[in-house]
């Protein structure tokens, strides 16, 4: 990226400062993480007050093990909050209507389509996105490692959703048969459509996950 390039990638804001310290600093300053509200009117750009009868706007979310203070409109979906306010763009939008599963995240260990969940409804619950799977040292989650080893996807726009769906499903059934696993992740669409290799990767993921939980 050129030096004078005005594009700011989502994780750049944290360069040179650990995410934890950044969040701490923000919380200490009493400000919300989000300073702009790209998609929802009423952000600081327009300076509009919240509407009468609106639910509380400044909320705390537990995302990837961190407490994130964020300014949320009442009609805002979790996918939008993650992508446009918390900088977590790994969660993809393929349809925005519960048709494709690209936006799948875990809420209290259960896979959900974040495009169809209101952010307000996840207060006090534990949200995990694709960015929250690897360890802080960068060690991949067993499901991620299996995808890498099997070169399990192609364009990979659906990949974060499939990975989250698999992580969630394996929590309920750590030792699935191939047809069971196919059922378990059938709420996700892939348009490159090599479901065979996706299943190969996810069966390997089940094996890696079992191995790592025994370790």
């Amino acid at each position, binding site marked *: 990226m050129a030096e004078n390039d005005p594009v700011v990638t989502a994780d750049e804001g944290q360069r040179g400062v650990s995410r934890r310290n950044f969040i701490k600093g923000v919380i200490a300053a009493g400000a919300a993480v989000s300073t702009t509200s790209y998609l929802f009117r009423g952000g600081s750009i*327009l300076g509009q007050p919240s509407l009468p009868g609106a639910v509380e706007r400044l909320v705390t979310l537990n995302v990837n093990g961190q407490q994130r203070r964020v300014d949320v409109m009442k009609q805002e979906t979790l996918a939008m909050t993650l992508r446009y306010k918390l900088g977590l763009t790994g969660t993809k*939008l393929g*349809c925005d209507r519960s048709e494709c599963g690209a936006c799948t995240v875990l809420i209290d260990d259960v896979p959900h389509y974040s495009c169809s969940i209101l952010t307000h409804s996840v207060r006090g619950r534990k949200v995990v996105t694709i960015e929250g799977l690897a360890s802080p040292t960068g060690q991949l989650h067993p499901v991620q490692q299996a*995808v*890498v080893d099997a070169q399990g996807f192609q364009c990979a726009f659906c990949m974060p959703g499939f990975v989250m769906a698999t992580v969630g499903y394996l929590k309920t059934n750590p030792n699935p048969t191939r047809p069971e696993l*196919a059922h378990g992740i059938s709420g996700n*669409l892939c348009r490159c*459509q090599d479901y065979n290799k996706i299943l190969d990767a996810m069966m390997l993921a089940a094996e890696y996950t079992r191995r790592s939980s025994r370790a």
Partner: protein
Amino acid sequence: MPERTLVGQNYTTPDLVAKVTGKAKYAEDYRAEGMLFCKLLLSPMPHARVRRIDSSKALAMKGVVGVLTADDFPPVKPDQSGLKPEQALTNEPVYQGEPILAVAAVDEVTAADAIELIELDLEPLPFAVDPIESLRPEGANARLEGNAYVDRKVATLKWTAEDFREVAAGRLPFGKGADEWKVGDVDAGFKQADVVIDETVVIQSTGHQPLETRTAMAYWQNGKLYLHGSTQSVARTVASVAGWVGVEPSKVVIVSEYTGGGFGSKIPGAHSMAIPALLSKKTGRPVMMRISREEEHFIGRARAGMQARARLGMRKDGRITALDLYIVMDNGPYSAQGDARSSGSIASLAYQPMTMRFRSVAVLTNTPPRTSQRSPGGMQVNAILEPIITKAARKLGLDQVAVRHINAPAGKAPYGPPGQNGKQRYVTSAFVKEALDRGVELFGWDARKGRSGQRRGSKARGIGVAVSPYVGGSIGFDAIMTIRPDGRLYFQSGIGNLGTHSTIDVHRVAAELLGMPWEKCEVIWGDTSKHVPWSCSSAGSQTVHAMTRAAHAGAMDAKRKLQELAAHDLGGKPDDYDVSNERVHRKGNASGGLTFAQAAKRAIELGGKYDGHELPKDINPMTKTSATALAGLGLMGVAKDNYPRDGDTHSYVVGFAEVEVDVETGAYQILDYTAVADCGTVLHPHSLAGQIHGGSVLGMGHAIGQRWTYDQHYGRPLAKRFHHTKPPTILDVPVAMKWDAVNIPDPETPVGARGIGEPPVGAGYGAVLNALVDALGDDAFRRTPVTPDVIVAALDAGKWTHEALTAHV
């Protein structure tokens, strides 16, 4: 031939960890300071003229920054066809959902609200959504200029009332066509036949539906446009965006590191990219245009549907003696599509009919724009002809594989229309018979034959096989690579990264030729400001063939320069030197000579051709600009692919399927599927598996359920989202599928590798349709997709009930 250390091996592509951790950035994942959002106003009518637009109320809204209309676009003139080329915004919408105007605002909700305040006065115009209806004497024309392409020009083409008597009988009339060619005496061919089948069928139109829509973000800096978008070629999107926006190509930078699928719909880029680009220019701020799934249905491109009639004659031994094929193609509202023409060529290649006549006409309709979708024309003709071949073979009591075998192309097989010398063109090579043999073994065809047409209770079994060729590569592109003083080898890649991995894979050919360990190679891709060479679009299965040739040429250039440099410094002749072990050394002394790092340093000192200050004359201007910018960084390999080629490159896939149909409900399951590819040397097995199975499943989707539906009366689409025209899910395909490749090098390319994106599509489609014919008999269907209601109604009536001459139902 070097030792195969990288080609044919699996490896982890360097983009994979970013993808699996969510760090990979697709177009919608970028942010820019002060970024606006835009929303589109779409035409509510299938064909209309804009009389007046009043944006004043919208512009008065707090937070609204600008409005863009067709009048803000650079003027365009009609092309040779007489039609004005498509632009991202229009004053004459020619399909319901075509964008007319865009609003930019500080947030998306404000932009959407502002759209509601636009006052739009439209004059409705006549429209047509079904090609056959437009060909009726009184039928409406989709465009004011006409309704069909005749001699490459838009003209009015109507069939006679006499012709339409055939339609009433369910047969496509052989009315006036536009394109026609023939090989041999078709009438004589039919005389030799022992069985003749004559069928009229309809193949549906479908959207490409990449999972990532064509969202784009743009900003300007020092008069230069920076566009973050989704494209099937980074290098080639520069010129198209420059044209749409009306600036010089040198003023455009395309950033597209990751593309969420294309399937032909993003070649190169998308017209709609001009909207954020021009809105950003107008407002002076970055603009993000998020495209919704429904908008993607309208502007996201689609496959041309076909209404077709085929007469096929087969001899007792299974040889196809004659084929008479007539295709009416649903062209959509804009430029002439090549699908029908490809159908003719692919039919003649796949089945090598002894005589053939081909006729077609491209009819304009007021439905979303068509463009090539994975195996354009090839997939459709596979679906038209495969069931007919299956029925002919069955009437003659022949084995289905044996019939494909006897008609299969082999060697430099001829195909397509005869040229001016009266001769057909021919392919570089074909090993379809070998692929069929391997498939029979892998699928267990002979053992499964016992289940053909078997009934158990309400369940009927069927097995099918299909042969699917397609174009598999182009030639003449460039490569740039540099060995730098850090001892590493850097490849510049202008190839789009849409998931085929060929962006990276093709460079392994060069690393292997230079004996460079892969760990010491870097591929730079996804950004035209990073000095990329001229390359093909990742479309039409070109890349693996075209860009391994270019990589080979570049590596040979680098190798020659290393040899010459060593001779210059160390004495002797260049041919006394060899490269291996990261060194250039005298033959037989692998530890002597210069390390690559030393050679890179010397190349910079010597300059001239060694480090890119002198360049070959024949490279593309884009390559020249990029190489010039990289000159002085190390020893440069830069070359155009000038390797000879005798014939046109095609690849082939044979597919085998078994289905089980519930004859009470019409529901069916694809129990098993196996595909074998003839795509030359295998470059990257994991990637190849993805292409073979993924392409096959795209074809299966057309067999089992995907389609457009239209309200014919109002010209409005009813299937606009995934759940209206649903791609196959993981539960719609066999839980385990097999594949293999014959892995015989193509003799007409130095690496031996051909492309493979397209051919699997027709194999998956045809194999499933044939298995359904095997399970259900000859008269269950005459249209695709074959949905449970089609099956159950046919079984009830004892004959197909869904007629073949209405599109989009």
